[in-house]
């Protein structure tokens, strides 16, 4: 009978032949690892330097590394069960580093951790706890991958993952078993060699498989550009975005090789979930396959065999993929980069896209309506013209200035500002911020629009901007920086939340009204504003969340310029989301973006079910204003 002891059995007295064999195996394993890994590193380093990249903000990088890598925060929070299983495997590996070093040292007779010493006894038991957790974790992940088989892991069963799981399990099992034997028992030696062989087989497999993320993803997380959808500047006269291999930057290549193929991006992608061909995971793997087959610094187009142009232009830039990615891949700069490559060189041909670009080259707004219509609206609403004396410039945006529903929202927001006694004015002229062309990759028109607007704002001496449109907020604050210094801007939810105790009180009926709030992508994931619109909506009724809320919010389908590109293939994103919102049983859908509002208005109108009412947070507030009887004249 084998007795369990708290002491790890370590075989002693390795023969010269054994030591030689061990040395040969280690060198072979290491060489096999490097033969493949060296090529990966070479491809990454041979890629183009990232324009505008600098290692500043070490604090953020260290924090992200600590939180996302060491604590596995994103891995666990976004997929708790498999996330925990993974975290245990990861922590098990970390705890095992010292054990493994000692294990090999023992083979050469220079073991430095005595199993019966005070530290050794503690550390080996400590590692045993992790080994157990790791073994259970890897078993759980094995069951999930091969028996439960969630669809976002892909249709093909990954046998290599099975081999890896078996090796990890073997590593843990051979370690734990050594507690049940003694130093001189033959079993100890067998276990030692089994452990060693598992390790030396595991090592060269890593760079051949998605387990490359073990080595690369800590670097990927640490080196990420930061921010959200940080679109890099174009460098020089020959940079048009991601056109060919020579445009792949070191960060893009590093990220492509780091992908662990977990499919979280795909699981949350509005395009993938509504029957379109875009699959963000496949985009990243397409770039990786390109790097493997063709390599960086080549002129072979990136779109074609490895990634399809159609897929790239199905992205709503909602950013779920980038938010979800546990290994630091920044999907949006890659997707937008591929679009830039196609649009800046003229290879993207789309009737709707061309109409939008030509319209914005000449006209003032993305809806293609005469600017005179905005003037009429401003006159009719008697909006004060911004003259430098008012506190805020109220930016109307294309939706607020031209779209009937957007105008209602702006008019209601202006009434709330009047009620609060905030001074504001609108500009005589405004051009589209360039959001749709920025996301579609048209740098030429985007630059023209950004520069023209920046010029107008500086001439008007605008100090602060407030707007109802999260797309305007994002584009003005972040994307315009490439061409000047935009004044600070805030979304009306942030503005209204500051005044939440001064907002009008709803009637008793309205107080009980259930409002389901839809987080706009460009307010939530892009700007990290989740609480403010809820605070505002809560002054008007009872706010509830739909199943997918906050950072997991599901797109309305309008972003990335797609609202201007005509009919979708597959199901409509807006219909899927509108049904989800309506199914909560709320009597009102609360929105905070005029694009979401417009998409849901159409989606709800297309349904036979009795639709909940659809109101922007500004409208939820405005309906309780004392002068409500003379409202809605937009």
């Amino acid at each position, binding site marked *: 009978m084998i007795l369990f002891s708290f002491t790890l059995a370590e075989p002693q007295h390795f023969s010269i032949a054994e030591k030689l064999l061990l040395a040969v195996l280690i060198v072979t394993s290491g060489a096999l690892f490097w033969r493949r890994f060296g090529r990966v590193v070479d491809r990454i380093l041979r890629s183009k330097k990232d324009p505008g990249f600098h290692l500043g903000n070490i604090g953020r990088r260290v924090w992200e590394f600590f939180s996302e890598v060491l604590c596995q925060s994103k891995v666990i929070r976004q997929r708790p069960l498999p996330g925990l299983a993974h975290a245990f495997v990861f922590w098990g590996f970390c705890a095992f580093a010292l054990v493994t070093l000692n294990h090999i040292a023992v083979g050469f007779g220079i073991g430095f951790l005595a199993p019966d010493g005070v530290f050794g006894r503690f550390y080996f038991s400590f590692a045993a706890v992790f080994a157990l957790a790791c073994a259970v974790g890897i078993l759980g992940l094995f069951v999930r991958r091969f028996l439960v088989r969630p669809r976002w892991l892909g249709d093909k069963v990954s046998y290599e993952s099975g081999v890896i799981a078996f090796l990890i399990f073997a590593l843990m099992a051979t370690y734990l078993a050594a507690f049940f034997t003694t130093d001189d028992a033959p079993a100890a030696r067998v276990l030692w060699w089994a452990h060693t062989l598992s390790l030396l087989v595991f090592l060269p497999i890593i760079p051949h498989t998605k387990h490359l993320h073990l080595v690369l993803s800590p670097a990927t997380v640490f080196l990420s550009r930061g921010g959200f959808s940080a679109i890099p500047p*174009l460098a020089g*006269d*020959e940079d*048009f975005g991601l056109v060919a291999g020579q445009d792949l930057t070191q960060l893009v290549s590093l990220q492509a090789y780091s992908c662990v193929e977990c499919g979280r991006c795909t699981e949350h992608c509005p395009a993938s979930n509504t029957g379109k061909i875009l699959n963000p995971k496949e985009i990243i793997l397409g770039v990786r396959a390109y790097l493997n087959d063709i390599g960086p610094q080549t002129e072979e187009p990136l779109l074609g065999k490895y990634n399809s142009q159609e897929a790239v232009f199905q992205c709503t830039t909602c950013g779920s993929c980038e938010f979800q990615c546990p290994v630091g891949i920044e999907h949006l700069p890659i997707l937008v980069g591929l679009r830039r490559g196609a*649009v*800046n*060189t*003229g290879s993207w041909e789309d*009737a709707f*896209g*061309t109409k939008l*670009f*030509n319209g914005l*080259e*000449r*006209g*003032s707004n993305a809806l293609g309506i*005469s*600017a*005179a219509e905005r*003037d009429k609206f401003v006159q009719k609403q008697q909006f004060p013209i911004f003259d430098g004396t008012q506190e805020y410039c109220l930016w109307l945006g294309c939706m607020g200035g031209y779209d009937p529903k957007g105008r209602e929202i702006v008019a209601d927001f202006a009434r709330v500002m009047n009620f609060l006694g905030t001074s504001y004015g609108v500009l005589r002229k405004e051009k589209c911020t360039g959001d749709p062309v920025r996301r579609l990759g*048209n*740098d*030429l*028109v985007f630059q023209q629009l950004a520069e023209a607007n920046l010029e107008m704002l500086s001439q008007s001496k605008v100090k602060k901007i407030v707007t109802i449109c999260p797309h305007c907020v994002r584009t003005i604050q972040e994307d315009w920086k490439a061409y000047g210094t935009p004044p600070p801007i805030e979304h009306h939810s942030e503005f209204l939340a500051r005044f939440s105790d001064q907002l009008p009180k709803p009637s008793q009926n309205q107080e009980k009204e259930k409002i389901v709030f839809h987080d706009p992508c460009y307010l939530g994931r892009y700007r990290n504003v989740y609480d403010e619109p809820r605070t505002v909506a809560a002054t008007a009724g009872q706010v509830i969340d739909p199943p997918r809320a906050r950072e997991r919010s599901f797109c309305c389908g309008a972003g990335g310029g797609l609202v201007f590109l005509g009919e979708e293939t597959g199901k409509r994103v807006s219909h899927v989301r509108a049904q989800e919102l309506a199914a909560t049983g709320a009597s009102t859908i609360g929105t905070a973006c005029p694009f979401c509002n417009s998409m849901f208005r159409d989606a709800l109108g297309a349904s036979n079910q009795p639709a909940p009412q659809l109101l922007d947070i500004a409208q939820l507030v405005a309906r309780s204003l004392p002068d409500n009887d003379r409202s809605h004249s937009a």
Partner: protein
Amino acid sequence: MKIIVAIKQVPERDAQVRIDASGKWIEEADIQYAMNESDAYALEEALQLKEKHGGEVAVLSAGPERVGTTIREALAKGADRAIHIDVDDLGQRDSLGVARLLAEAIEPESPDLVLTGLQSDDLGLGQTGVILAELLGLPHASLILQVEKTEAGLSVKRELENGWFQTIKLPLPAVLTIQSGGNKLRYATLMGIKRAKTKELRRVPAADLPIENAPTAVLEGVTLPQKQRSTQILPGTAKEAAAALVEKLKFEVRVL
């Protein structure tokens, strides 16, 4: 095929125009300018012909310095080179005067085809192209939606009234005035703009051309359109009102 496209720069579609102090022209400051719409279609037709049959597309524009932005846009979209007739008093020249300037620049080029928009969005006279053909002594056709090159010359589709079209054949060289909407316009690209920087742009001062500014037609004045509301409420039941509406649409407005 060597094609010359004559383009004009006009106030942007959304421009808020004001009459200047003389009452004869608009205030030109603070206005954004763009390529005349039908000229943009003429350029597109030229670029498509070049893509199909090879050759060269040169753009030609008369106007002050600001015209340079529109010329660069044409180069960015794919024209190979440009000629800019530098002239500050375009507003005081009539169609004949402008056509003479253009003809003077075109003649030494001996192109196979000259294209231009059928009329300008600002003055809308629709004369320049056809006078140009006369001055060059070339056959012409106007209101063209489609151009096809044939063995003998060209086969072109003209737009007539009321949804009718006419296809005619004419020899080369020729002058065509192009109607908007026959093709889909391409968009300008960053790559195009960067490449345009290296393309030839030849400036010819109008003073160097042997043309006198002696207009035969003089612009007396320009006015803004007067706004008026003339909403009519048709009384009676829905049926009566509908009948009255049909009557009015048929016989007063003549759109039915």
